[in-house]
């Protein structure tokens, strides 16, 4: 077998390898640990690109860990949807990592930075593996790894708020994982399989025997993944955790971690459950209404916040609602829009948290009302923030419009124009809380009141790249959309 055949496993293995190598390297000579992790992340990203090319050329790819075929061994699968998720996860985390290099020295004590790299690599490895795995139990293990690593990058700041927030997150996540394990057990009881494809084949027959168990399992999955990805009303842990964490962690958590679980739910709903089960009970209907409530309440809560990062965190709850709206509408175009929003929001929200990070790094200001006049002191940062806000509102030329376009089109196609109104109302609310920040930042009379440190290039460049990426996702979206549409059409 050629090396390229092992890419699915190698991506994860390489990241884990870097995770375990970093602490000793950091102790030995701190200079090497950052390039090492950057190199591993870039290599993983490169492999993901090659994998995507391979998948689009020759169709889905299956990889058996250790050569053991299912049902005994763990199977990894790369199909267009998973490779898309993989690309987003690895690309965005590489980008955030470059930003983190400078930001961390400011937010963390110097001796934990090596450990931060470790946690970061483990987090990315587990997320990549969640996107790849084709096995329910393996998914459970990876979810736990992901949660614990995520708690790690919050609590590493070691102040009171972070510890409290990460503890809250840990408890609620554990509840979610518990629900998930229970659901998996029920499916295993009914069919005897854990592999996605085998389950899919066996569930139709098992459904007639154990309908209640399977419904319960589906409901448990909604709760489990809803908790992990902060679907309203299971979002209570998110604002504290995302707002108190160091800025690169906030970017990771809001940008990627919550979406990975949304994608996992997509995969389970459309690759594990046969169509007739989804049609038999209004599972997607439940998700739809929760998502719509999340879209509205996330925006409303965000309006009430006085702290910039808190506002961004609440806005994430609204935005994750958009992703679930796609799933809830259960319609090809809407799902495409929801999945596209995974990428758009990952880039946008990560960039917004980065600009918040730059603001905190250079001025120490966190309160929204103190930001008046900051546009003159930090023009590039606030321009990036403006581009990000435009995407959140869904102005033309940004990625936010494209995902809203598809979601709205899907809602119309499904004959539910009400949800188009939900999307529009939430866009308006987003405008109402993002716009005043920008206006007061740029148009404020008089000088900015706080002392401003210069912005390091290592922070400025990722911001510029992010702003460009937001615009590119808004203008050159066609190839990704076409790929997603095909992937979704083949799943439905």
């Amino acid at each position, binding site marked *: 077998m050629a090396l390229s055949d092992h890419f699915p496993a190698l991506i994860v293995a390489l990241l884990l390898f870097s995770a375990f190598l970093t602490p000793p390297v950091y102790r030995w000579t701190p200079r090497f640990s950052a390039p090492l992790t950057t190199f591993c992340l870039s290599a993983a990203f490169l492999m993901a690109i090659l994998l995507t090319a391979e998948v689009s050329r020759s169709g889905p790819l299956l990889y058996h860990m250790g050569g053991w075929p299912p049902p005994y061994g763990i199977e990894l699968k790369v199909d267009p949807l998973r490779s898309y998720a993989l690309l987003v996860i690895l690309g965005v985390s590489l980008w955030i990592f470059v930003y983190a290099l400078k930001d961390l020295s400011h937010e963390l004590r110097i001796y934990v930075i090596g450990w931060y790299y470790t946690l970061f690599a483990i987090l990315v490895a587990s997320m990549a593996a969640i996107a790849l795995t084709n096995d329910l139990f393996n998914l459970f293990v990876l979810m736990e790894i992901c949660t614990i690593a995520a708690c790690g990058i919050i609590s590493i700041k070691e102040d009171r708020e972070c510890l409290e927030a990460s503890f809250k997150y840990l408890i609620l996540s554990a509840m979610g994982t518990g629900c998930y394990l229970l659901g998996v057990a029920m499916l295993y009881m009914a069919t005897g399989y854990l592999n996605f494809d085998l389950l899919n084949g066996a569930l139709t027959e098992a459904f007639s025997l154990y309908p209640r168990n399977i419904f319960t399992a589906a409901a448990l999955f909604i709760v489990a993944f809803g908790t992990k990805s902060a679907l309203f009303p299971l979002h209570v842990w998110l604002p504290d955790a995302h707002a108190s964490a160091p800025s690169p962690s906030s970017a990771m958590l809001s940008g990627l971690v919550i979406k990975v679980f949304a994608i996992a739910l997509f995969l389970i709903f459309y690759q594990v459950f046969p169509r007739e089960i989804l049609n038999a009970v209004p599972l997607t209907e439940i998700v739809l209404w929760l998502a719509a409530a999340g879209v509205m309440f996330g925006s409303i809560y965000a309006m009430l916040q006085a702290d910039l990062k808190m506002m961004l965190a609440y806005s994430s709850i609204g935005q994750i609602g958009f992703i679930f709206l796609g799933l809830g509408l259960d319609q090809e175009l809407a799902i495409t829009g929801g999945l596209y929003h995974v990428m758009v929001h990952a880039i946008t929200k990560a960039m917004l948290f980065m600009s918040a990070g730059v603001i905190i790094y250079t001025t120490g200001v966190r309160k929204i009302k103190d930001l008046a006049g900051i546009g003159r002191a930090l023009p590039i940062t606030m321009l990036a923030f403006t581009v990000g806000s435009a995407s959140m509102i869904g102005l*033309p*030329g940004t990625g936010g419009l494209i995902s809203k376009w598809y979601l709205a089109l899907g809602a*119309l196609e499904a004959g539910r124009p009400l949800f188009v109104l939900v999307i529009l109302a939430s*866009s308006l609310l987003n405008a*109402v809380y993002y*716009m005043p920040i920008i206006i007061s930042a740029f148009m404020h009379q008089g000088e900015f009141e706080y002392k401003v440190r210069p912005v390091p290039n290592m922070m400025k460049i990722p911001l510029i790249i992010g702003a460009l990426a937001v615009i590119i996702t808004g203008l050159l979206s066609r190839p990704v959309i076409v790929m997603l549409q095909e992937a979704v059409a083949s799943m439905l």
Partner: protein
Amino acid sequence: MDSARVMFLLMFIVFFPILMAPVIFYACRYSVRIRDSLAVVTSGITFLATLTLYPAVSGGEVYHYSLFEVLPNLAISMRIDILSFCLASLASLVWFLCAIYSVDYMAKEHACSRYYTVFIFTLGSCLGIFFAGDLFTLFVFFELMSLIAYLLVVHEETEEAMKAGYKYLVMTIIGGLALFFGIIIVFELGGTVSLAAGHIIGESSVLALLAFICFLIGFGMKAGMFPLHVWLPDAHPVAPSPASALLSGIMLKTGAYGLMRVIFHVFSPELIKGAGWDLILGILAVITIMLGSAVALTQEDIKRRLAYSSISQLGYVLLGLSILNSNAITGATFHIFSHAFMKSVLFLAAGSIIWKTGRRKIADLKGIGRQMPVTLGCFSLAAIAMIGIPPLNGFLSKWTLALGALDAGMPIYVLVLLISSLLNALYYLPIIIPGFFEAPPGEEQEEDDHHHEIKFDIQEATPKMLIPVIILALCTVFFGLTPNNIAYALSQLTSAFLLGGGTL
């Protein structure tokens, strides 16, 4: 003209100003004069380039180009036909004159580099609206222009301006979302949003009506249609005068232009009439006309009065669109020309007066004609044209609109036009008559002297401010003397072109 050249010209006209905007921003680091002349030259070149397109469209040809696809079946595309040409040439002319006017006017203001950058950028995006080949591109440029124009509205950064600007911004976002909804529905029903497709929606349905209402909200908001006009009287007067002239003279028209495209390309006149939707537009237009004129009467501030007058004048255009016959469309298109000339003269002349004397209240403008006879003369000319007195262009558009109303058997609309003209007279004449015939506030005692001589103490604004006003004022005369003028001929062509389903 061969199509490659038209394509190049279209791209050039839209993107040259947009690309020049950052150049102008950086030019101010070296010299203020370079910056100012760059702004004038850019708008001048754009105007000339637009004029060269005339042979391409005069025969009713349509050129359509897709640049690239943003989404499947959704391309960024450019298009030119006679209607686009009319509005683009008008817009770039007024922009050019306002740029010349700005040079001296803005010399007193702060943050000029921002002003000129935004000024030129909005020119590009405004022309982008007129040359958009599909609703999506139109939407992109429409939002771009509206959002960037926010910086023109709040330019003075006073508390009043910020408040008006915020109102403007929220209304713009609401309008944008309504447009987005409308475009989505069109795409859902017709599978395309290209203006080249002809009548995309062929039959009336609930969704189609929803789309029509959404377009009415989105474009009507921009055009200051009742009840979505609330932002306009706040936003237009607080901007610097050349920007007010553009906001009222040109940018309002993008809303009317959008509605024209929606009526003729997305739906069809037969569908609109058949489903009775023209009545919605007609009623709203009548209310807009009456309300705008009536409220204008009560305004004390000259620029606010002009802003309310804009609302009522755009009502004429909407009225023409609701009548939907040959004369009415000619009248509506011609009124776009007329109003652009008249309102820019009024705003620029008012701007000169404010610039020179600092007086904004109408009560303070007594005797201003003795100090600035040419400026007030031009103002009077435009105001009389507004009222609709014969040899001026306002008369010609009202005449044509009235003919259209009679053709459609709606004499009530003629009555509306007449009442509104009367109201126009009531709120414009009290500016002009005291301006010329009463003594300035400080010199009242001398009036009692029977042997008094009227003293002219001429202090006109600078030539750079005077010349654009004079040119525009001459336009109101020139395009009104006879119906054999280029603007009227273009309006007739447009009307024939649109009603003929895209051919002459």
